[in-house]
């Protein structure tokens, strides 16, 4: 069961929308970061069960942050949240180890699906 998530996005509104799309009474501890560099730092500090990662951000973009996080922790569960769902982008983040991609703006349904996927992935890791 997921206990904590990290939302990495430079837009405070995007982070707000993501939180609004979480199920009611989710009980999750939520960490936030406003660029990829801060995202990596907070990931290493808090070790969240799931990280939502925007791609287009100042200071460090989401591709670099994803790659850095996966280098530190290959088991890290990262789900990319982006409006740019070009095939090349989807393939690239998948190759880099993202579990899934949700299209922005997110919806309650897409976030719920993402949480379920992350839960399954975490359970699979625990069994292995």
């Amino acid at each position, binding site marked *: 069961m997921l206990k904590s998530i990290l939302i990495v996005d*430079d*837009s*405070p*509104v*995007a982070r*707000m*929308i993501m939180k*609004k*799309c979480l199920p009611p009474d989710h009980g999750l501890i939520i960490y936030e970061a406003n660029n990829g560099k801060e995202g990596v730092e907070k990931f290493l500090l808090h070790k969240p069960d799931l990280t939502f990662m925007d791609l*287009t*951000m*100042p200071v460090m973009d989401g591709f670099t942050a994803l790659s850095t996080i996966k280098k530190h922790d290959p088991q890290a569960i990262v789900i990319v949240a*982006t*409006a*740019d*769902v*070009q*095939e*090349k*982008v989807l393939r690239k983040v998948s190759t880099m180890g993202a579990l899934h991609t949700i*299209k*922005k*703006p997110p919806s309650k349904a897409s976030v719920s699906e993402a949480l379920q996927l992350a839960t399954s992935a975490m359970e699979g890791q625990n069994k292995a």
Partner: protein
Amino acid sequence: MSGDIQPLFADEEKDILQEVMNIAFGQASAELAEVIDIFVVLSVPDIKVLKGSDLPDYLCKELKPATTVNIIEQSFLGKFSGQALLVFPAGAEKELLHLFTQDQESNSQDIDIDIDTLETETLLEVGNILIGACIGKIAELLNDVVAYDPPHITAKNLNLENCESPVPAENFAISIRTMFRFEQQNVEGYLFLIANQSSIDWLKKALIAFLESFE
């Protein structure tokens, strides 16, 4: 220069507008890639609100060392109405034309159109695609439907150091600076949305409604 979005938009409205633009540009990237079959990235838009009279100076500073630009204009009509101005440094049309014809170079001598016309048509088509994708996505996110007039070149090789603003001095222009990156080529362009006060009033309400839709 007014240069700041603050006087026209409250902090929360500015943040929502920025995110709506980010989403719109991201989705527009994905749709453009399907339309023109080229990997395109529209980078994080940097938004400012400028007075029309400040526009030439602003562009001069932003586009340095280029001082000569081409401007494509397209009007859009909906609850959010106005004109979109797409500004490219002069010369960008050659890079854009190359982009669209690079797979057909062996046949280029067969095209019975002079190069100037081709470059102008390229600017118009790129303008049509980019403006349509960006405005269309913004409208869609804010539950509006817009219609468009055909694009036209409103200025060719315009020297910014000695020109009148393409926007009436008393009007406000929402400036969205973005880099259009096509495959390996970077073409920096600026998209300006010029809206009247009633459209701005509608936009402010629509931005709040957008955020509330996630409740």
